[in-house]
C-alpha cells in the first residue's frame, strides 16, 4: 500500500474512533482489510481505499474501523488485574462500604467478552464472602461485531484454553460440540453496550472499578488525557481504574495516581487535581491522605508479589 493510501486510512479511522494507527500497525492492514474488501465485492485493499475516496460511505467506514481496531482478547488476561479485584479491591469495599452493597464495574474495551466474564467469574467465586451484594458489570466497545459475539457467551475450544483455569471451565461452561457456552448466570451479570470513548461518559453512570485496559495505547496523548480525566470523574471517591500493562497516567494527567503496591492500579487523585503537581507532590500525599483501612493495605502483598 502506498503512503498516501495509508495516510488516508489513518486519518479516516482517527476521525471516526480517535484511534491513531501508527506505522507499525501497517502489517494489520492486509490481513484485516482484505476480508472487508471481499465482503464489498472487491479484491484488494487498494480498491477498497479507492471506493472510500470516491464516495463517503458511513457503513463502509464503520466496517473498516471495526476491522482495524479489534483486539485479541482472552480470559484473565495478565492475571493480576483480576487478582487485584479479588485480593485487594473487594476485601477493602467489604470493610469500608457499610450498607452500600453495590458494585458497579465498567469494562471500557470489552471486546469479545472475555474480560467482563472473567470479572463476573471472580465475583461469583467470592459470592459466599459477599452476602447481600449486588453487582453490575457494563461492557462497552466500539465494535458491534465483537459485542454481538460477547453477548452470545460462546467460545471456541482454542479461546477457552487461553487464560481460563480448567476448574473454571468445568464450573462455568457447557460444551456443545466444539464450542463452549458460558453459564447463563454469568452471562446475566454483564450488560453490553456500544460505546465510543470519544463521546460523553455522563450517560454511563458511576463506577467503583473501571477496567480501561489495552485501549489507551491506540490514542494520541491528548485523547488519552481526556479519556483518563473523564473516567476519573465517573469513579467513586474510593474507586479504582485498572490500566493495561503497557499503559500509564504518568506524564499524561494527575487526575489519577498509581498505587505503588499494585502495578497497573490507579486511584483518584483529588488532592492534586488541577495543581499540575503530579509526580513529587502526589508521592508524599499518597500516604498522608489515604483513607483506606490499614489492615487492607497490609494484606496487599499477595496480589502484587505474584506478577
Amino acid at each position: 500500500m502506498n503512503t498516501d493510501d495509508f495516510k488516508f486510512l489513518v486519518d479516516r479511522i482517527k476521525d471516526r474512533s480517535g484511534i491513531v494507527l501508527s506505522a507499525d500497525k501497517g502489517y494489520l492492514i492486509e490481513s484485516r482489510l482484505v476480508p472487508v474488501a471481499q465482503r464489498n465485492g472487491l479484491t484488494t485493499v487498494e480498491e477498497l481505499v479507492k471506493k472510500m475516496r470516491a464516495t463517503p460511505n458511513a457503513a463502509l467506514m464503520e466496517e473498516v474501523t471495526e476491522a482495524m481496531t479489534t483486539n485479541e482478547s482472552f480470559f484473565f488476561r495478565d492475571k493480576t488485574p483480576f487478582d487485584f479485584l479479588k485480593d485487594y479491591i473487594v476485601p477493602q469495599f467489604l470493610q469500608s462500604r457499610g450498607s452500600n452493597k453495590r458494585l458497579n464495574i465498567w469494562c471500557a474495551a470489552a471486546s469479545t467478552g472475555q474480560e467482563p466474564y472473567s470479572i463476573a467469574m471472580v465475583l461469583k467465586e467470592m459470592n459466599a464472602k459477599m452476602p447481600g451484594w449486588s453487582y453490575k458489570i457494563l461492557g462497552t466497545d466500539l465494535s458491534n461485531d465483537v459485542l454481538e459475539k460477547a453477548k452470545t457467551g460462546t467460545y471456541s475450544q482454542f479461546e477457552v484454553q487461553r487464560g481460563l483455569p480448567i476448574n473454571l471451565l468445568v464450573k462455568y461452561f457447557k460444551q456443545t460440540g466444539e464450542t463452549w457456552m458460558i453459564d447463563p448466570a454469568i452471562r446475566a451479570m454483564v450488560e453490553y453496550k456500544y460505546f465510543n470513548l470519544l463521546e460523553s461518559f455522563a450517560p454511563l453512570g458511576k463506577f467503583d472499578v473501571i477496567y480501561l485496559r489495552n485501549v489507551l495505547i491506540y490514542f494520541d496523548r491528548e485523547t488519552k488525557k481526556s479519556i483518563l480525566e473523564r473516567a476519573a470523574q465517573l469513579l467513586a471517591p474510593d474507586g479504582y481504574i485498572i490500566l493495561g500493562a503497557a499503559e500509564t497516567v504518568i506524564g499524561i494527567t494527575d487526575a489519577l495516581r498509581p498505587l505503588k503496591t499494585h502495578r497497573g492500579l490507579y486511584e483518584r487523585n483529588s488532592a492534586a487535581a488541577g495543581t499540575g503537581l503530579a509526580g513529587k507532590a502526589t508521592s508524599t500525599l499518597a500516604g498522608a491522605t489515604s483513607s483506606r483501612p490499614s489492615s487492607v493495605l497490609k494484606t496487599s502483598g499477595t496480589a502484587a508479589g505474584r506478577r
Partner: protein
Amino acid sequence: MKKCLVVDDSRVIRKVARQILEELDFEISEAGDGQEALEYCQAEMPDAILLDWNMPIMSGIDFLKALREESNGHEPVVVFCTTENDMKHITEAINAGANEYIMKPFDRDILEDKFSEVGLV
C-alpha cells in the same frame, strides 16, 4: 532448571512439546506410554508431567492414578494434553489428580498459559 516429563506415544507431539518447553527453560525427558512414565517417576520425580490420554500399554489416566499412589507421587504437577475434549474426560482427569488440562490441538500460547496457570512458568 525444572524437569518436565513429556508422555505421549506420538514422537511428533513429544518433539513439538519439547521444543516449546525447552524455550520455557525446562529440562525435558520423554516417555512413550504410561508404564514407561511410571518407571521414570519411580526412579526420579519430575517437577511437571505433560500427559497424553490414549497410549498403548498404559493409558494416561491409569498412569496418573498409579502415580498419585506413589509415596512422592503427589509432587509433580500434571497437565493433561489430549484429544479427549469432553466434560466427562476432563472431570475424570481432575478427580484423578490432574492439575490442568489441555485439549489438542494446542500451540505455544496455550501450553505457556496452562503451565503458568499452575505456577510452573
